[in-house]
């Protein structure tokens, strides 16, 4: 079956512009996660969606970052007024509910802010 897909795979943007990243989770997975990974670093949790519950936004680094999810399907991560320090790979993952199950990751979106 299809895995987690993300688009675009690469995005180059100018400082100050807004960007929107998309994630299509595996069908049937109720949980969806966004992470940021800077070069050579580990995963930095950003936000978590679980079904119709209020999302856990505790990892969002600033109010320039926001995310939405439509039901249990597509999610978009929006970064407004991008800064050079936003350059990173943004990874999306989905799983069956909670933190008790393995997460399946998409290939990521590499964001470069010039």
């Amino acid at each position: 079956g299809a895995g987690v897909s993300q688009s675009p795979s690469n995005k180059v943007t100018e400082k100050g512009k807004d960007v929107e990243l998309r994630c299509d989770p595996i069908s049937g997975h109720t949980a969806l996660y966004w992470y940021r990974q800077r070069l050579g670093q580990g995963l930095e949790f950003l936000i978590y969606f679980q079904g119709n519950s209020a999302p856990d936004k505790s990892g969002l680094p600033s109010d320039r970052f926001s995310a939405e999810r439509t039901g249990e399907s597509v999610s978009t991560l929006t970064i407004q007024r991008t800064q050079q320090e936003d350059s990173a790979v943004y990874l999306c993952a989905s799983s069956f509910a909670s933190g008790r199950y393995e997460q399946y990751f998409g290939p990521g979106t590499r964001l470069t802010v010039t």
Partner: protein
Amino acid sequence: SQQGEEDPQALSIQEGENATMNCSYKTSINNLQWYRQNSGRGLVHLILIRSNEREKHSGRLRVTLDTSKKSSSLLITASRAADTASYFCATGAGNNRKLIWGLGTSLAVNP
């Protein structure tokens, strides 16, 4: 915040040797997971061990969990060049629905 701490940060071995990586964590967990990340296949789940389990095997992988010491180890036997990757541990705990990730161990297997 990061909970898991992998040790060592980097490891270089020869093909055929065994590789052991460790992960320590701070709070009570209900499961611990190991993932591998390389440039070819992205981030992939390897194995999940629950808090009531002490050891688990999957192919050439062996994971142990010691909840009294709040630590886990990942052993890769008879390593191959294709095992070259970064390995991350992640913990799931109680009502906390998100995994807490370590910073990873970078493994290089030299042919």
